[in-house]
């Protein structure tokens, strides 16, 4: 028991090494490159430069950042508003088939987001289901031009990310002890009061987890903007992709990635600080 077991060393060391090489190191590379200069014929020039950050701080690009943040925020908020009542209803379901209903949410969670985005085209396009319905019911006389607009991208983001909000919320709400709510009622609280004073604070970790799982991807899912937005709408993800694969401005792309990671770390600190602590995430994510 005194000699460290080879197995123990292998188990810990092996995975730690993997993470260090393939998760930590790449990120450090990005950090470094964000401070280098651009080279038109190679990838980066090995000289210190702040042009990467300067470019993203510049007027036009700052606008995409802020726009993208706004959209991600709207997406997360919409998912929260749409998802909370659903998760609540699901948690309160008293039926033997509860697992089946849960499974019906888990399936879209694991289905390829690209496929789900593509599926939306059938609904939103000029000759798609939505327009056919609206025209048929006489609610509009010209087909709505939704595809290739910002609205379409927003709908796409909300549609794709809704399950990512519902599952953590459900996990959290499920753990809510109904006796607490009863106690609140006994003390004279109305339904709304009970909700805001008891349910909401206790499900806060779920709300935070869900927000992170919708906000961060909403910033990066460039294919939603590509497929539904007509290459006009730019998320931070599209911007980063362009910098690396078309404009070939690696320092700028890296700078943008660093900022994106910064946002993530901020959210994580916020989450960690809310008293839930890192290791408990698994159940909240509900995989």
């Amino acid at each position: 028991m005194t000699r460290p077991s080879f197995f123990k060393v292998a188990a810990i060391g092996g995975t730690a090494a993997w993470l260090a090489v393939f998760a930590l190191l790449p990120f450090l590379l990005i950090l470094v490159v964000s401070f280098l200069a651009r080279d038109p014929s190679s990838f980066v020039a090995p000289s210190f430069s702040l042009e990467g950050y300067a470019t993203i701080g510049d007027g036009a690009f700052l606008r995409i950042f802020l726009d993208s943040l706004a959209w991600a925020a709207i997406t997360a908020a919409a998912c929260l508003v749409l998802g909370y009542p659903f998760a609540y209803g699901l948690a309160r379901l008293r039926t033997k088939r509860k697992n089946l209903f849960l499974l019906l949410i888990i399936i879209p969670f694991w289905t390829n987001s690209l496929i789900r985005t593509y599926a939306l085209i059938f609904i939103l396009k000029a000759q798609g289901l939505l327009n056919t319905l609206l025209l048929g019911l006489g609610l509009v006389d010209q087909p709505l031009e939704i595809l290739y607009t910002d609205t379409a991208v927003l709908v796409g983001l909300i549609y794709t990310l809704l399950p990512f909000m519902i599952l953590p919320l459900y996990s959290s709400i499920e753990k809510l002890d109904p006796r607490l709510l009863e106690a609140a009622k006994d003390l004279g609280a109305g339904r709304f009061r009970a909700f805001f004073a008891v349910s909401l604070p206790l499900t806060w970790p779920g709300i935070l987890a869900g927000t992170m799982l919708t906000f961060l991807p909403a910033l990066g899912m460039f294919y939603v903007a590509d497929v539904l937005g007509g290459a006009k709408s730019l998320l931070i993800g599209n911007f980063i992709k362009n910098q690396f694969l078309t404009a070939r401005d690696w320092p700028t792309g890296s700078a943008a990635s660093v900022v994106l990671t910064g946002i993530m770390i901020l959210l994580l600190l916020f989450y960690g600080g809310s008293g839930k602590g890192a290791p408990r995430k698994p159940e909240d994510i509900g995989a």
Partner: protein
Amino acid sequence: MMKKFLVLALALCLCLLISLPAWAAKGEVVVYNWTEYMPDAVLAQFTKETGIKVVYSTFDSNEAMYAKLKLVGAKGYDVIVPSAYFMQKLRAENLLRPLEKAKLPNLKNLDANVLDKPYDPGNAYSVPYMWGGAGILVDSAKFDPKTVTSWADLWKPEFKNQLLLHDDVRDVFGAALLIKGKSLNTTDAKDIEAAYALLEKLVPNVRVYNSESPKTPFLNKEVAVGMIWNGEAMRAIEEDSKLVFVWPKEGGMFWTDCLAVPKNAPNPDNAHAFINFLMRPDIAKAIVEEVGYCTPNKEALKMLPAELRENPTAYPPAEVLKRSEFQNDVGDAALVYEKYWEMLKTGK
């Protein structure tokens, strides 16, 4: 029971791993081409005749192709299809492998007028694949094509949110430059800035930027007017006869696309075999009949039906060519173009 499952899974992985080298041993040619630019039937026929497998992937702009090529270090791909105006850059950066003319006997089928151009003297590194130009497509079900005769017409307020533009910096800026009476290939930063100022006013009209398949939004009735390459127009009109193609009065924007072999191509012999195959008259004919652009292959041209050869969309008449320009390399000014392009696409 669980153990058996695990054993099965591992066995499966092992089998796959073992068969990996087997796949690599078979001859293959890795082709990197524009989208919708080569019929599947042609690829299938190549494999049938030579036994060489074609691994095919696509890009939608020269810039994207160039970025990918640099990323892989000019390895991995056997045949690429850059536009002529990019050839200069690729040659200067030593990214291409010189062609072995002995392996390309079908070169004799090409029209001598398209060979030995300044972008690739002596065709040391490339052979022309197809040429074509960008013009305007109008959905006559929505707008009268007779009212659209110039690039400037795209700016009309009634086209708000109806417009399609290529997701291509040179095409979009080219249109603005032509309106201003400048050359498509200007390197003057002031001209480019003026073009940008003009384009800023066009943005409210733009519904979608698309270079992957410009005809699709037209066919889906999402857009009713916009810029399009003549080959795409040919295919679009085939499917929807209400669409009308117009060569603008300032001229079309012409280009030539070439076949080239990257410097560190893994299968150079197969690459040459493929390129030679494409220059066969019957193959070239099959390609343009499906894709709709102009072939530089004079033998194939002879084999085309008269109605195709005389179609002004597919084969622009001499007077159109006279007033039009071919896109060329702009050297370092490319960075200026790109800067304004980014600003255009990110602005609202």
